């Protein structure tokens, strides 16, 4: 009994300092080990996903090779699988989204950071962030029941009347306006990526040092000249990064697009009024009933292609940012 009591006291009196150091050592190295392991999790996930996709897609990859990317025939009955209409639809709708969303987001961000009175900034910014929290299915339903009838009934016929007489541009507005097409999908996507681009662009613009603006103004520049020569060049890389995040979201968006794009892979056409298909919608629509081995495999390969498209876009974007960043040193995220 006495021995039992003695031994801990012994430890405390004699081994106080070394014990603490030992404890610190284990805590420290333990923590380091944990964070190292955690850092490996995303990497392992990525490798796991790609490996699984490759494994399941191997049948289609071997059978169709590069034709899978180039052929436009997607025929489960006769086992002809070409992803070109899906790839085209994905890139086309995402670009429409970016073209529509970027000017709006940039304009609004400039207003919020340069012109808006202080009391308006925070509430407005809050509202914008709320937009990002709306689930995509809600955007889809809104697109289906509100946007599509308006587009079909008035906007698209108007566009058609305006653009049809112009030679090359008329290709954009060919065909009947059914209310399920690339344009509507692109606009829904634009609305969905708007808050992403806007909130990042706003943060970037606010990060432009106040001294830069004051210097410009003290030279007699107008607010527009300040924006043009100081604020925008300074924020350019950040704005590009914001657009890319938006683009990434647009590429992978599934539900909202599926509901308004028409899900038709029968033709590839530059007309905004053609019903189309995206990679993500094709996977969502067809996965459950893909009952033949090669069909299933082709759909898994579609997922791989989507990953590839997203990766390509990301790499291009990073290259672009690196190029642009060589100009004036700017705020980055």
């Amino acid at each position, binding site marked *: 009994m006495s021995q039992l009591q003695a031994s801990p006291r012994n430890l405390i009196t004699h081994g106080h300092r070394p014990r603490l150091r030992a404890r610190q050592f284990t805590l420290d190295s333990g923590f380091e080990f944990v964070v190292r392991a955690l850092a490996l999790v995303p990497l392992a996930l990525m490798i796991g996903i790609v490996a699984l996709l490759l494994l399941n897609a191997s049948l289609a990859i071997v059978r169709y090779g590069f034709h899978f990317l180039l052929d436009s025939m997607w025929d489960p009955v006769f086992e002809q699988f070409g992803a070109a209409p899906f790839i085209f639809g994905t890139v086309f709708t995402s670009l429409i989204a970016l073209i529509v969303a970027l000017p709006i987001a940039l304009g609004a961000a400039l207003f919020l950071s340069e012109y808006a009175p202080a009391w308006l900034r925070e509430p407005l910014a809050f509202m914008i962030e709320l937009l990002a929290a709306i689930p995509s299915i809600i955007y889809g339903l809104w697109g289906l029941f509100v946007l599509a009838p308006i587009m079909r009934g008035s906007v698209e016929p108007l566009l058609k009347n305006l653009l049809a007489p112009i030679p090359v541009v008329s290709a954009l507005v060919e065909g009947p306006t059914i209310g399920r097409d690339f344009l509507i999908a692109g606009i829904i996507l634009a609305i969905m990526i708007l808050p992403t681009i806007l909130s990042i662009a706003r943060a970037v613009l606010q990060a432009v040092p106040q001294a830069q603006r004051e210097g410009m103004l003290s030279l007699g520049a107008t607010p527009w000249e300040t924006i043009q020569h100081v604020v925008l060049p300074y924020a350019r890389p950040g704005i590009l990064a914001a657009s890319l995040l938006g683009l990434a979201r647009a590429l992978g968006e599934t539900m909202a697009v599926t509901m308004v794009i028409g*899900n038709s892979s029968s033709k590839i056409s530059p007309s905004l009024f053609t019903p189309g298909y995206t990679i993500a919608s094709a996977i969502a629509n067809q996965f459950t009933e893909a009952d033949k081995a090669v069909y299933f495999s082709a759909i898994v390969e579609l997922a791989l292609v989507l990953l590839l498209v997203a990766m390509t876009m990301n790499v291009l974007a990073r290259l672009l940012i690196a190029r642009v960043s060589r100009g004036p040193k700017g705020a980055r995220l």
Partner: protein
Amino acid sequence: MLRQFVLFVSLLMPIVSCSPSDAPKPTSAPATTSVPQASTSTSSATQGAVVINGPFAGEAKTLNGAGATFPAVLYTKWFNEYEKVTSVKVNYQSIGSGGGIKGLQDATVDFGATDGPMTDEQLQAAKSAVLHIPMTLGAIVLTYNVPEAKSPIQLTGETIAGIFLGDIKKWNDAKLVADNPDLKNVGKDIVVVHRSDGSGTSFAFTDYLSAVSDAWKSKVGKGTSVNWPTGLGAKGNEGIAGEVKQSPYAIGYVELIYATQNKLGVADVKNKAGKWVTPSLDGVTASAAAMAERVPEDLRVSIVNAAGDKVYPISTFTWIIVYQNQTDKAKAIALTRLLWWATHDGQKFSGNLAYAPLPDAIVKKDEAKIMSIGVNGTPAFPGK
């Protein structure tokens, strides 16, 4: 506003949830379903002794199944009723026929359900011999939104194929006007709506088109998903019904119940005998009865475009698929009793839910199949 909301929800359903309990509860099912029912019930009466009316000692208390969405409403009703009778709980996931087949092949479910029979290739991928047991019958109807059409539009196999191939582009095409004088001045583009997801409904519809049109057979073929030559894709029966309702001059194909529920126009179809037929459950049962003599031994049979005056030509069986040689005796007993009950007592629930009851001759064939299910060579069905 309310109506729009209902449409919202109905479109949402196939996307957020495939739970069979969400499937629409029929309110206005066609009333005429009793004619072939009479003969079916006499047949089960002659079986006399074989009535399932309570639990059986030694049977499994739960069964798991997955597959077709087409019969999900009926299956849900069945399994609810069946639990009341025998206190065996049947979990059914309506994940689609493809999923049902895969589930059976991997043996992750006790039974699968499919709207299109398994192909030879799929049968080979299964662990052992698979039985197809027809459970019920459904009709696929052409539904349209043409305000000018006063009486039901009349379509032949040829015009339906023409529309879905994209050859007939306008509502006042001479081929359509020949059968429908109402359409003479409707110079609008036809908006074709098909399923975007793979589906047994599409299988039956394309099966019909392949039967009536050589052009369709060679260009498109039949399948749960096909390469649609024209038109828009919408998800689920609800999706097509919603799309047709929303888009003027659209045409699509849905299961009968979805057209009657949404109060959409339903086309009359000319059958093989040259008669115009309004889709009805009687017409469907007539199709099955007409084919009964020529049903192959494995019961994998298409009943589209059957001969007979009363036949509605776009009809289909839907099957439950099970392994003939079961490994678990308790499960095998429960399964065979369930199948027996569903193909006999269960049939009376079909009419109210807009499914057509099986004709007598098919029930007889089902009985033989159910009796042939065994564990290590001994038949599993206890006979009560």
